[in-house]
């Protein structure tokens, strides 16, 4: 029987276009220190560090755990770095939780970051070669296929774009703060990668997020309410093969089935109080609602349209503002995991869902082929 795992400390930086006041280490440190403070721990309490970040070319620092060891108080400790494309923040948290569940370590600091302002995201995506279309150019055809397949009305994507930006106004850490956001404003923004408007796509952000994970005994004596890990799962599939369905990838379905099974969930829409889902382009909300089993195939957009995914709905999605409002790429997945945990701890502030007891954190990456998820709850499973 694996050891239980509890999230007892969470910290994040203000997410913004450019954190020009800190170094890379300083930015990571800010999130890590806040997580330690939340857990009422010091650097001495930490047994191991697991970090995650997206491609090294973003910041021009190869294997950044080497240089960040000092800032993360890792001297004399184990430190490792996970990289699973855009899902990395989620996968990193999963690896950290496994270190606790396997009883290899008692208290693990996990952190994910991206300081995109150091370099140029689109340069990095294309490795400086011409013809790069960015993530939006890659995913636009998948989105078009979803719209054609489901017959979703064209305003559903803009609805998501508005909802998540309105949620972001309740999250002081969120990057984009657009108080007058409206469907009209989204539709009037430039069409960057048809059918994706500029305001239907995520920003590029600087930021870091950190969590302190510990075992059952640590969770029981935590300074503040812990979030208990009810299940974790990762799944990966080939990014390309004949007959692949990138719109509703099987790896995502399998991953959610696994994590629900661990958490004892049979009807996610009824049994989960909210979800923090990796939605970098607005249409991914309805697409993932289907992939994650909240709606049957072709019906995901109706959840958005009916308001079910708004903060007032029965399955609120991305109360934090989500990736559409803040996207420090390597950290974006862990932010989803951390926001889910904040909610079940009752510590999400103005974007708190009252009485949230169970929540899903989700991240995806690559060609919609890497998935990482966890379910966290206010009670021990």
């Amino acid at each position: 029987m694996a050891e239980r795992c509890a999230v007892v400390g969470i910290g994040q930086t203000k997410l913004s276009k450019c954190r020009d006041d800190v170094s890379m280490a300083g930015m990571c440190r800010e999130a890590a220190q806040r997580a330690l403070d939340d857990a009422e721990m010091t650097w001495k309490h930490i047994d191991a560090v697991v970090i995650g970040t997206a491609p090294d070319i973003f910041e021009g620092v190869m294997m950044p755990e080497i240089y960040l060891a000092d800032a993360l108080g890792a001297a004399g400790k184990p430190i490792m770095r996970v990289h699973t494309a855009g899902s990395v923040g989620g996968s990193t948290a999963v690896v950290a939780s496994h270190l606790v569940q396997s009883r290899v370590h008692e208290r693990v600091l996990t952190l994910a970051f991206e300081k995109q302002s150091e370099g140029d995201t689109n340069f990095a995506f294309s490795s400086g070669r011409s013809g790069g279309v960015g993530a939006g150019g890659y995913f636009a055809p998948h989105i078009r296929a979803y719209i054609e397949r489901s017959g979703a009305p064209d305003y559903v994507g803009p609805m998501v774009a508005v909802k998540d930006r309105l949620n972001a106004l309740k999250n002081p850490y969120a990057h984009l703060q657009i108080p007058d956001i409206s469907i009209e404003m989204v539709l009037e923004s430039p069409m960057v990668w048809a059918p994706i408007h500029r305001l239907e796509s995520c920003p590029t952000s600087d930021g870091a997020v950190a969590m302190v994970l510990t075992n059952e005994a640590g969770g029981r004596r935590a300074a503040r309410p812990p979030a208990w890990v009810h299940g974790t799962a990762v799944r990966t599939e080939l990014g390309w093969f004949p007959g692949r369905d990138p719109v509703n990838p099987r790896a995502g379905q399998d991953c959610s089935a696994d994590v629900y099974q661990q958490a004892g969930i049979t009807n996610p829409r009824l049994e989960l109080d909210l979800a923090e889902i990796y939605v970098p382009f607005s249409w991914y909300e309805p697409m993932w609602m289907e992939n994650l089993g909240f709606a049957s195939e072709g019906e995901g957009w109706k959840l958005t349209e009916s308001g079910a995914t708004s903060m007032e709905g029965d399955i609120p999605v991305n109360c934090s503002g989500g990736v559409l409002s803040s996207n420090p790429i390597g950290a974006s997945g862990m932010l989803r995991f951390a926001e889910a945990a904040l909610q079940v701890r009752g510590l999400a502030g103005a974007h708190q869902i009252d009485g949230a007891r169970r929540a899903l954190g989700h991240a995806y990456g690559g060609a919609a082929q890497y998935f990482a998820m966890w379910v966290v709850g206010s009670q021990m499973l």
Partner: protein
Amino acid sequence: MTREPVQFMSHHTKVEYKLPAPSLLSIESAKQLAAGRVVGHKCPECGKVYVPARGYCPLCVIETTAAHEVEVQPRGIVTTFSVITPLQYQGQEEHDDYAQATILLAGTDSTISMQRLDGIPIDDVRTGMRVEAVWLPESERSASPEGAARGFGLGRAITGWKLTGEPDAPVEEYGEHIL
């Protein structure tokens, strides 16, 4: 003492990589394309046809060789597309909007992505269109694999795809091959 703070520093990085020698497979593929032939490999296990050939079937994870070569017609169906407003970054050479299509080649199980369309106004691009290859004049084709797009396409002998003029394909014909 107070002094003007330093907030930023520039870190100019530069590494020169030697490109790996072209593989025998890419040399063969380029040679065939220069001759106006589109070839791929047919997996001996699952029977799927891959164009361009990769030298293995990613589903069966077995290697494929020249013995598994098949020729296919340079025509296919647009399965999905996007209109791109090129992002500008260091190294980007694209500036104007363009449509990029994913094409299911006739007789294959593999789509080729990021393909350029030729003579089709952006507003007229739709899924299901039947297209055929537009070739560089034979004299201008290079039998060298250099400059071939990285894994996405068919090199430079084919410059784009134009309408065949036939009626669009029904979705049943390509719906399983969006990507």
